[in-house]
């Protein structure tokens, strides 16, 4: 299917008649549609769904009709809202037009003239449009499930990337349908019913034993029905609980992220540790100074004094000091030969002289001073070094504490008004526990169902054995035998086909993943058709960007498989790929890689984006392949009257 054009009339934001002609040129297969948020990009994607399948999720049915068109209508007048898509499928041009009429009553109130939309399908034959609505279902041309893989609104893409439970359900269902498994699966479900219907046809009264077995079977069937109803109820409860779980996970991501919470915790603990360390450092510095600061100050004083004295007299030739005079007095004889007696003149002169001379020689005093000063020298150098180191430690620790405080404040600011991570995490754990309990309950229920099914099967066999040889039931038995055989064969066929599809799909997704991601991580397909990425170390954690790439690779794989798998159910067909802001979560390198690769996944690539995200690497990567470009421009007539206009740029 290649889309040629889309025509809108009064559809939501789009007032009056507006149209887009998509590029159908194989070399320039890209159509770019740019518009700000709320301009109507998602509306255009939804318009396709409404046109094809008459489905649209709106809070109120009147919202489909353009507000301005509604305001301009006079009482008793009528206006249509319509979407018309022209496309080529299997070489035939089709036009699908879906419309709904609105009118104004006498009180100027807008009402739906037709409650449901009307769809018309036309086929172009020999240049003329032939109305084929009566005998054609759009699903037979373009199945709705295939649309899941080709038309991506931002929300749909997010579901696929997140692999939420809603996304997973869609994925499994769509893959089975797109790849031709749905009719086989349905036939299995119906054949079970056929076999039971044949058994009900047995003429039970013709054998006493048969009547007995049948009565036993009816009892077990009653129990089985009750158990199965309980199972359905419980499954539905679990499904609702899983949806709630998705909501909690979403809240967890949206609010206080785990990273923020953990970073905050780490920062606070680092701050506390550093604060303790800072106290220790101050203590050590205090103790160190207590021991060594006096010595350091003494060294300073020694040096200061040294500068004041003239130590040139260190080697002076003075010879007398107090000790020499005392020795002369003690000897009783002066060096001049005179006798000295205590109290005589010589004695008094010598005593008087002791007042004028030093205790020891100046040179000896200076030497002692220098010796003492030198003893401080080495230590003083290391003291300064030690103090310097200790003060540096204090400064660094203080800086770290300050940095922690700033970061803590920053993170706290980002968490203002958000729920606490721990609170939501608590809710998540509780919900997981509840689901686990329900799963255990459903497991026990299924075991009971299994036991009862075995019993009923054993009775079926006994009844069949009697029917086989009973003239009245022989033919019914044979038909039932065919029905059971068909079930076995189709089940086997389904299993083989599903295995083949899974293997082919994995191979293709792996190929696209390597091309898009640029590394050799291994892709694994889970039972529910979701994918798991393992890097070369076997790690399975993926970033948002990797999840986007995995989803792109998955989309590519599905389209590829749907295109190339030609068997009794699938016909090879070109496909378009329509995406709203697909590259937003990617880094520059992967934006470029993906923008170059995505058009290769399909025969037509329609990209919706806001201008800021588009300009730069994406625009450059796509530049040679753009065939058409449009801008959606918003116009304000008044505060409440706004509409969007599609403007052709290229």
């Amino acid at each position, binding site marked *: 299917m290649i889309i040629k054009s889309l025509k809108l009339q009064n559809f939501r934001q789009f007032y009056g008649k507006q149209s887009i002609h998509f590029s159908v040129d194989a070399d320039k297969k890209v159509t770019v549609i740019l518009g700000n948020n709320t301009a109507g990009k998602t509306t255009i994607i939804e318009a396709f769904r409404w046109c094809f399948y008459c489905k649209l999720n709106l809070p109120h049915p009147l919202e489909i009709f353009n507000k301005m068109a509604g305001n301009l209508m006079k009482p008793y007048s009528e206006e249509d809202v319509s979407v018309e898509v022209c496309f080529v499928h299997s070489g035939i041009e089709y036009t699908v037009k879906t419309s709904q009429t609105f009118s104004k009553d006498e009180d100027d109130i807008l009402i739906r003239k037709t409650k449901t939309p009307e769809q018309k399908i036309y086929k172009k034959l020999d240049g003329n449009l032939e109305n084929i609505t*009566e*005998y*054609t*279902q759009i*699903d*037979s041309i373009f*199945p709705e499930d295939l649309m899941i893989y080709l038309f991506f609104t931002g929300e749909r893409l997010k579901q696929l990337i997140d692999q939420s439970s809603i996304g997973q359900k869609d994925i499994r269902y769509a893959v089975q*349908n797109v790849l031709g498994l*749905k*009719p*086989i699966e*349905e*036939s299995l*479900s*119906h*054949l079970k*019913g*056929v076999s039971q*219907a*044949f058994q009900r046809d047995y003429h039970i009264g013709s054998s006493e034993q048969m009547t007995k077995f049948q009565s036993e079977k009816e009892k077990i069937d009653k129990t089985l029905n009750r158990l199965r109803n309980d199972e359905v109820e419980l499954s539905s409860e679990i499904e609702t609980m899983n949806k709630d779980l998705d909501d909690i996970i979403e809240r967890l991501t949206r609010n206080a992220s785990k990273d923020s919470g953990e970073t905050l915790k780490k920062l606070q603990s680092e701050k506390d540790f550093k604060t303790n360390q800072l106290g220790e450092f101050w203590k050590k510095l205090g103790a160190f100074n207590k021991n060594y600061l006096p010595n350091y100050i003494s060294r300073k004083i020694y040096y200061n004094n040294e500068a004041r004295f003239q130590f040139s007299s260190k080697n002076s030739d003075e010879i007398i000091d107090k000790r020499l005079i005392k020795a002369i007095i003690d000897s009783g004889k002066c060096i001049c030969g005179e006798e000295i007696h205590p109290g005589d003149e010589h004695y008094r002169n010598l005593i008087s002289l002791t007042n004028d001379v030093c205790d020891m020689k100046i040179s000896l005093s200076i030497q002692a001073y220098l010796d003492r000063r030198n003893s401080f020298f080495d230590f003083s150098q290391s003291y300064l070094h030690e103090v310097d180191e200790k003060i540096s430690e204090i400064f660094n620790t203080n800086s770290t504490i300050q940095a922690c405080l700033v970061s803590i404040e920053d993170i706290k600011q980002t968490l203002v008004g958000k729920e606490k991570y721990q609170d939501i995490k608590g809710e998540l754990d509780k919900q997981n526990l509840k689901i686990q309990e329900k799963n255990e309950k459903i497991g026990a229920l299924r075991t009971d169902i299994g036991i009862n099914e075995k019993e009923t099967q054993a009775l079926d066999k006994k009844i069949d054995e009697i029917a086989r040889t009973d003239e009245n039931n022989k*033919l019914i038995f*044979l*038909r039932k*035998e*065919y*029905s059971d*055989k*068909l079930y076995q*064969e*189709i089940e086997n*066929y389904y299993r083989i086909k599903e295995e083949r599809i899974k293997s082919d799909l994995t191979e293709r997704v792996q190929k696209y993943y390597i091309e898009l991601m640029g590394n050799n991580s291994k892709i694994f397909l889970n039972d529910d058709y979701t994918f798991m990425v393992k890097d070369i170390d076997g790690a399975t954690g993926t970033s948002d960007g990797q999840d986007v790439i995995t989803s792109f690779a998955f989309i590519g794989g599905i389209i590829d498989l749907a295109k190339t798998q030609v068997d*009794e*159910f699938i016909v090879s067909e070109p496909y378009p790929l329509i995406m709203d802001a697909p590259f937003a979560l990617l880094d520059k390198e992967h934006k470029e890689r993906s923008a170059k690769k995505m058009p290769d996944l399909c025969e037509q690539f329609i990209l919706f984006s806001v201008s800021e995200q588009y300009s730069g690497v994406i625009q450059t990567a796509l530049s040679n392949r753009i065939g058409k470009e449009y801008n959606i421009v918003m116009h304000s007539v008044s505060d409440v009257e706004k509409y969007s206009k599609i403007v052709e740029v290229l």
Partner: protein
Amino acid sequence: MTNDKMVVDLMRKIIELEKEYIYGKTKQKLNKTDKISEIKKIIENSVTIEGEGR
């Protein structure tokens, strides 16, 4: 005993019918009981006393 050829023919017929149920304009609206009845009829018409399913 079932006849392999007939089983394969019936498989084809049933899967084709299922495609009609899913994509066909007229059959899509049938409920599950009606769909089961249609398949049952296909088997009944193919497996008769005369042919005994062979």
